């Protein structure tokens, strides 16, 4: 009898305890995250798993998807921006591990426009395979990651593309000693050993181009473009091919003293428009990203750069409005009136970025397709009014 009552006491204690723990859990769940719908406790509530923890920020985004992304970012106080893990001149971690480059500076410019601070930014290095998933899951808000704007990506993959920030295209590089020059054409490479990195569209493009011209080439692919270049230097490859921006950088830095290299043909064999990429149906956020790029181009048109932008504050007309003067449109976009002033002041205009990251690689802005339309290039920003 005595034993039995002890047992029931115990069981009562256990259940009371279980209830207490459960109550604790649910009460804090409620106060923890108002955005949760409560259907997914594994994700929303506390978890002592190391891995989950790292994704707290991502969870927030996911839970509130459907809301306005621009407002979310402003509430969060941080822009998540995806860049390449390593892309020479576009996004490379410097010796302190901070990403520097043309693309990462566009990330900074976007953060400066949306949040007023170029450092309110979380740069996420992504591999080519991860990039679109990262946007779809909300891990990053925008990609500035050497992403070519293509029909299938725009429709099937579910991405939207902003204005092209860099018009790239596949070119070839050969040794002058082998009789090539910058005026050579693809037809001249008949019988050559052509090398490129494996599993990319460059491989397909050159094969298609050779087929089209009816010439025979030997195509060798390597895992890594460093290895491709090394083979080219050592003579294992006659021709190497990849995007023009990559070739120029390689030529500038790796051409040995006893060789001279030439890049051709003048008109690339493929079109690679690279620009910001974001998820579909977030027009307010898309506007902010797009107009950050446009503002940097318009500032370039007026010759307004990082060092002299303060002289132009309060100017009349388009430029004045863009920098936050009377009649500015930024407020209607959900941005601060001086958003684009901050972009130019903190990060710079388009040619500032070019001078900082691409000119040292030997890429010329003047006369290239990436120059402003006024100089014969393709950069044609819409008017700001």
């Amino acid at each position: 009898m005595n034993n039995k009552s002890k047992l029931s006491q115990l069981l009562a204690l256990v259940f009371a305890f279980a209830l207490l723990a459960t109550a604790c859990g649910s009460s804090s769940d409620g106060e923890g995250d108002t955005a949760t719908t409560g259907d997914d406790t594994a994700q929303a509530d506390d978890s002592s798993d190391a891995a989950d923890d790292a994704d707290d920020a991502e969870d927030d985004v996911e839970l509130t998807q459907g809301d306005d992304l621009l407002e979310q970012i402003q509430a969060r106080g941080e822009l998540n921006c995806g860049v390449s893990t390593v892309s020479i001149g576009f996004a490379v971690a410097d010796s302190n591990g901070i990403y520097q480059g043309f693309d990462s500076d566009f990330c900074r410019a976007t953060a400066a426009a949306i949040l007023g601070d170029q450092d309110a930014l979380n740069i996420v290095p992504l591999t080519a395979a991860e990039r679109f998933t990262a946007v779809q899951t909300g891990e990053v808000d925008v990609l500035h990651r050497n992403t070519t704007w293509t029909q299938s990506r725009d429709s099937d993959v579910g991405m939207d593309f902003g204005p092209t920030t860099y018009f790239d295209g596949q070119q070839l590089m050969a040794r002058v000693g082998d009789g090539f020059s910058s005026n050579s054409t693809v037809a001249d490479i008949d019988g050559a050993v052509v090398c490129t990195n494996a599993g990319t569209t460059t491989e397909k493009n050159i094969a298609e181009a050779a087929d089209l011209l009816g010439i025979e080439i030997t195509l060798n692919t390597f895992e890594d473009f460093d290895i491709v270049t090394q083979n080219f230097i050592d003579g294992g490859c006659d021709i190497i091919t990849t995007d023009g921006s990559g070739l120029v950088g390689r030529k500038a830095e790796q051409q040995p003293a006893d060789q001279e290299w030439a890049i051709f043909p003048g008109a690339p064999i493929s079109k690679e428009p690279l620009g910001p990429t974001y998820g579909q149906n977030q027009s307010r956020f898309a506007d902010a990203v797009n107009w950050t790029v446009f503002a940097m181009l318009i500032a370039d048109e007026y010759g307004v750069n990082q060092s002299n932008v303060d002289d132009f504050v309060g100017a009349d007309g388009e430029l004045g409005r863009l920098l936050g003067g009377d009649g500015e449109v930024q407020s209607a976009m959900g941005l601060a009136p001086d958003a684009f002033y901050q972009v130019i002041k903190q990060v710079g205009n388009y040619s500032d970025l070019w001078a900082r990251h691409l000119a040292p690689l030997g890429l010329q802005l003047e006369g290239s397709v990436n120059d402003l339309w006024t100089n014969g290039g393709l950069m044609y920003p819409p008017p700001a009014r």
Partner: protein
Amino acid sequence: MVMGTERLDEATAELLANVAAEDAKRPDEPSLPFGEWVKKNLFSSIPNAFLTVFFSLLTLFAYRQILNFVFSEERRWEGVRVNLRGLFTFSYPASQYHRIWITLGIVLVLSGMSMGLMKSIGRGFSIKRISMWFYSVGLSLVVGILLREPSVLKDADGLARWSFPDGSPIARSETGLLLIRDDEGVSLLAEGESPLLLRESFGSAMSDRGWWWIIAVFALGIGSALWFGFGDMKRRTTFIPAIPLTFGFLGLFISSVWWYQWGHYGRDDAGILISEPDRLVASTTRIPWTILWFVLVLAYVAGRALVRTERAGLTRVLIGFSALLTPFVTYFVILRDPDLDWAHVWSTDIPMALAFMVGGGLIMWILTNPAIGERGRLIATALMGIAVFNWVAAFFGWYAMLQKARISFLLLALAALAAHNFAGDARQRLRSVWGWMGAMVIVHYLATMINTAETVAAPDQFAGGFVVTIYIAVFTMIFSFPLGVILALGRTSRMPLFRVMSTIYIEVVRGIPFITILFFFAVFVEFFLPEGMDLAALASAGIAFTLFSAAYLAENIRGGLQAVRQGQYEASDALGLTTVQRTGFIILPQALRVSIPPLVGAVIATFKETSLLSIVGLTDFLRVANSNIPGQTEFLGVKREGLLFICLIYWIGSYSMSKYSQRLEKQLGVGER
């Protein structure tokens, strides 16, 4: 059982003492004159002489090529020097570096203490041996100085000078093309002709290497001083303890930062490459390194002071326990710097921890009552039912509950199931209650810290460099070892279910290439997780490493288990030990002792295999050297230097582990029984 271990340790110490005494008694090997030794060992027969000559030439050739590679004018070692910070910590913010130093300090205190607490620290190195070291360093330097090809001649712009194959000099045009300018005008290299680099003469090369000569002579001098200065043969067998010698060498190395400028390159705030004395990486780290050296030495001295006292055993246990906790505390608390939401802590975390401590403690108190009998198991089973139900409910989303509560509840149920093993008098029962409370404090403390938003980007985001290598290696070692033991026991178990399951697991994992498992975890694992749950890349890689390594460890340990003689099982059965007691106190200690060499081998393998992380997209040590440095605009294509550097670091890590395992084997007398 504590008594037993003590006695075992004493026996080991005695055995070692005996071995040392025997060593001393053993007559010295008659030392042959140099000429005779060479004749006997290297040129004893014609084939032997041929092999000696052939391999000496091969070694010299390899040595020369390595030196030419390292000292070539084409090498840009500043690519490594500038990127030292990136290689080791990648993007961990420099303003938060004190956290890394604190972490390192904790690790050093623990290792210094445990080194100091070792019963026997070995005989160390004989003066004879040390003198041989100096001789070999000096000789390799002399050979190196003579072998390496003379330096390239440079023009006024610092560019290498070239010549035609016939020796006439080539000038450089602006485009980089090599041309000759003579009276007739400009001519190019003929087809198939390759230019030669102009090098300085042998004589001037030797005089340019004056400093190297001085160092070589210095090393040879010290070697001779040690060899001849202590004239008699006896002194040559005088021993210098290994640990103080290592500390001394480390100290010398660290102090060198104060009088020699190691890294000549750094970046100023604007990111421009400079070489000013006050901006060197070496100079910004010399104060922490010096402090850390003193910390290590002091910890060792403290350990030595404690070793002969009564507290040594307890201290050893505490240090072992702290060493287990250290990775978690340093990673989640120190490196991440959690930003605690104090309102939440006071309203939820602390009350919940208290509730589990008190409630669980009560349950443990009741369940450890020897009189409770079968009802105890019933209650424990009921608790387990609730605990499991909580997880099922979480999966289907029936009711909300804090994950921490769910885990604590599961732990409580597990403790309750095991409670009858700890039944006893009031003192013993109280001990298990305290044990439960202590476990809860640790679990809840860590869970709270882990769960809180961090203020410093944790390795999941900065994910780079040597930190990731170490993180994954330590993570794998901590988790794969217990898992491996369980799998090995399961595979040798008499219960068919466990045996079959363990065997299937081990054979499946061992039958799949590791890189495939890594990709599987990087790509597929999200399909196995509950909806919306996501694993960080680093965590999933860590789990993949753990699961893979555990299968191999299990086989190593199984080998050890099979080496334990049947008589040990029978004897422990005859003593009336339970299975748990037999396994824990008789079988496993013997099995693990035998498995030490393969276990350390597995640890070293894991340490090196972390380089596979670079393939699944994580920025590990290899990736920084292999793609990041060559990607930087200033160091485009500078890849070989970084790869050689990380080879050196990997080698230092692996070799010191292997040395440590050899020591451990000697201490435990593996292979000598």
